[in-house]
């Protein structure tokens, strides 16, 4: 017996939708909001008890991430004390200098200058994205912020900083982060600065930020 074209069409559509949905459901079950905060590495801006907690997976060479950083700065000014931001490194392989930028920012943590370094890397992105080598430029930026150049040089060439960046990236991959900037705002995923700002405003419009 040959099944009719219509039944075969319907069966194909139903089978594919069911198969893909089960697969996606399996992936979503594998990540849990608790994993968002795994490997906390002390890069939190604002009050950690703030009602809106943002975890950002970002890439220093991504133009959209630089734009999102400006949006975040405005949100911090507008909603002082109501937002906290945790930075997570997610250097994309297609950006030649992202990993080095993340390593320099990571090394600024131990000298208490992570956020100034973070901001200056984004603000100067257009200056360094086309360079062949960025180490000397990043060192200059760091020293201009008051970092100790000798300590920094030792750190950026050690495997420890690279390891911390890699751990962030692995954590992001387990959360199905593929693009930057990806945000988890009180556990909800949004991608891009515009959607992040909308979600933050929406949460803060509700008393308690929930």
């Amino acid at each position: 017996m040959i099944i009719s074209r219509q039944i075969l069409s319907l069966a194909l559509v139903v089978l594919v939708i069911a198969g893909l949905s089960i697969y996606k459901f399996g992936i979503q079950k594998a990540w849990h909001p608790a994993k968002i905060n795994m490997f906390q590495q002390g890069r939190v801006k604002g009050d950690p008890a703030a009602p809106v907690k943002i975890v950002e997976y970002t890439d220093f060479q991504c133009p959209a991430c630089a734009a999102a950083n400006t949006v975040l700065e405005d949100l911090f000014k507008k909603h002082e004390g109501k937002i906290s931001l945790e930075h997570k490194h997610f250097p994309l392989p297609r950006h030649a200098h992202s990993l080095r930028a993340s390593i320099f920012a990571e090394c600024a943590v131990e000298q208490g200058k992570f956020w100034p370094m973070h901001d200056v890397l984004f603000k100067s992105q257009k200056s360094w994205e086309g360079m062949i080598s960025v180490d000397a430029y990043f060192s200059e930026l760091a020293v201009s912020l008051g970092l100790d150049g000798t300590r920094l040089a030792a750190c950026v060439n050690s495997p420890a900083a690279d390891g911390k960046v890699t751990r962030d990236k692995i954590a992001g991959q387990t959360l199905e982060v593929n693009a930057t900037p990806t945000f988890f705002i009180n556990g909800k995923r949004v991608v891009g600065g515009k959607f992040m700002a909308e979600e933050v405003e929406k949460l803060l419009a509700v008393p308690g930020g929930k």
Partner: protein
Amino acid sequence: MFVVIRLLLGALFIFSGGEKLLKPMEEFLYVIDGYQALPQWAEPAVALLFPWVEFFAGLFILLGFWLRQALAVLLLLSAALALIVGQAILRHLPLDNCGCFGELIHLPLHGVILIDLSVIALSALCLANSTKASRYSLDAFYARPKA
């Protein structure tokens, strides 16, 4: 030759749709928003449905099932994509990646226009020669004389 073109077109769109379907929907929503071509209220619906249309059009073309209809859908889809990417190029929108294949393959917008135009040409060619393109397909199986 038409069968090979049909298989390639089908595989391309299964890959493109499947890649988006397996990734979080928010990533494709972000891509769509970057093109600034749709009203914001329509973006989530398009982000949800577009990958399914791509995937099923690709699957049906690959299997050669409802081939003419699936090719017509592909033609419309590719024409719409060419228009959306074209307006982004004309408006100099700051998109360094088309988002067509998620984060797996990165193509500049000019490259995407070339791919879209090629897909339009190849789909039209298959549509005009649908009998030849239907060899080794489910349509051919259903069209065979009954014993």
